[in-house]
């Protein structure tokens, strides 16, 4: 269970990225978080991963209060999350197997656990035949599948995906979303931040819309008009998306 109550986040620059957000995400739910650039989606992502602390309000994930959590407990908390990014964030000097095993190694898993778990993830993501490939030898969709396998290998209870299809074509995007849906069916909570209206409409899942730091709608699929889909969003071209990406990466660098 993820519970945010009256959460606000103001950066040191004075920018108020998230304003008085309250929401509940139940265990095993599949939720989309959508909105324009600068709507506060990425800040929300970072608040849940405990990269940022809210200025006001409280965040509780699986019974842990992120505000009062001690620094030394953060790594243990993060092991209950699996994070996926638009730019995959794979280690380019290591092959597929090593990229997935990396997530296990850094939490001190034994070689036996690695030998058992990594092949399972390779099978789940359909990469068994490519375990020796380096990331640059794979397509975008395959690279994202490696990132998903890496996120899953430590058996997290929540998967957080930030624009997982942002760098992929339509076919690969569908494939990745199908994979995330399969993972969700196994009981893992999945939270996907996305711009793609097509994907949101196809998936028929709960959608939280954000704008200027506020939640402007939170709709279950059955509540949406099947003809209209979700509330129309401004049409975005490639340039706008690129601008959004670079702003996010600047934020991370800062």
């Amino acid at each position, binding site marked *: 269970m993820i519970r945010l109550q009256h959460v606000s986040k103001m950066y040191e620059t004075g920018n108020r990225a998230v304003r008085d957000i309250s929401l509940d995400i139940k265990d095993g739910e599949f939720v989309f978080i959508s909105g324009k650039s600068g709507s506060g989606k990425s800040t929300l992502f970072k608040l849940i*991963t405990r*990269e940022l602390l809210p200025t006001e309000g409280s965040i509780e994930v699986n019974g842990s209060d992120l505000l009062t959590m001690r620094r*030394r407990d953060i*790594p*243990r*908390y*993060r*092991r209950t*999350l*699996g*994070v996926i990014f638009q730019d995959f*964030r794979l*280690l380019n000097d290591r092959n597929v197997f090593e990229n997935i095993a*990396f*997530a296990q*190694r*850094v*939490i*001190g*898993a*034994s*070689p036996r656990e690695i030998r058992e778990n990594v092949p399972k993830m390779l099978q789940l993501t359909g990469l068994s035949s490519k375990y020796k490939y380096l990331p640059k030898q794979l397509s975008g969709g395959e690279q994202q599948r490696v990132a998903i396998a*890496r*996120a899953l290998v*430590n058996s997290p209870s929540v998967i957080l995906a930030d624009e997982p299809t942002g760098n992929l074509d339509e076919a690969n995007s569908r494939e990745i979303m199908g994979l995330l849906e399969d993972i969700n069916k196994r009981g893992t909570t999945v939270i996907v931040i996305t711009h793609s209206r097509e994907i949101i409409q196809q998936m028929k899942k709960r959608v939280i819309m954000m704008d200027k730091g506020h939640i402007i709608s939170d709709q279950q699929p059955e509540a949406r008009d099947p003809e209209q889909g979700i509330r129309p969003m401004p049409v975005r071209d490639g340039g706008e998306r690129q601008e959004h990406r670079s702003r996010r990466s600047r934020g*991370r660098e800062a």
Partner: protein
Amino acid sequence: MKLNTFFYCTKQGLKNIGRNILFSMASIATVAACIFLFCLFFAIISNVQHIVTEAETTVGITVFFNEDAGEAEKKAIYEAIEAQGGIKEIRYTSAEEAWESFKDEYFGDKSEELAEAFADDNPLASSDNYEIFLNDIENQQSMVEYIRTLPGVREVNYANALVSALKGINRVIYILSAVIITVLFAVSIFLISNTISVAAAFRKRENEIMKLIGATNFMIRAPFVVEGVMIGFFGALIPLTAMYFIYRRATTFLLTQVLAAGTTVSVSNLFQLIPIREIFPQMVIVGLILGVGMGFVVSFFTIRKHLKV
């Protein structure tokens, strides 16, 4: 810490060294130069100190008595000196022993022939004396001054010039080495810190991923600390190996030179270097603590600064 975590961190640390080999080599070379000079000065200072100690034990204060001084007066002098404290040993040398010692030292193998002329007339008849050895050579001057005030004392001899010279040399070496080593330490710290910073920049992406998938601070920092420790270790190992061979040769060379110069046995003993089996274990301990310690501390604080995990 689990064994596989230890191996993982060690492997990653070694990989870091390989990734920026030039920086690592520069750091190792500077640490090596620093520890080599440290060991060199350590050896010189230890040996000068050793010579001073030898001088303290072999060259004492010699107290000669007035010709008319009786046994009671000599005993009173003995007790007065002993009462001052800080005395290692007071040795009485009779006139006969002094004459025998003189004959051995100056007449050598022909002592009996040359001494025959003196027959029963001991030329050192009134040279019985106390030889006094102090615990701390620093007190020598004040002790000499005190003894001169005692009744029945004719003359006081002591090796003031030698000890002062040795102490002076030691002080100069000490200051010189402190300055050079401080500069080299500063350069070493700067270079190790730079190497670790470069490694941190290389692994920025990896560290970000590690952070997000739940790696502990220890797990993220450990490879960098391993890298620093390895730089320090190799930086110490190289000069220690070099020092072992150099010191061994120097010991033999100096002894050969001193003996070839025809000095007496007591003087040659004075200028013998500390045996390598005594000094080298100390050098190894100090060198490794310095190298590994410096690598550990510098890398630990550098990576703390770079990785806000």
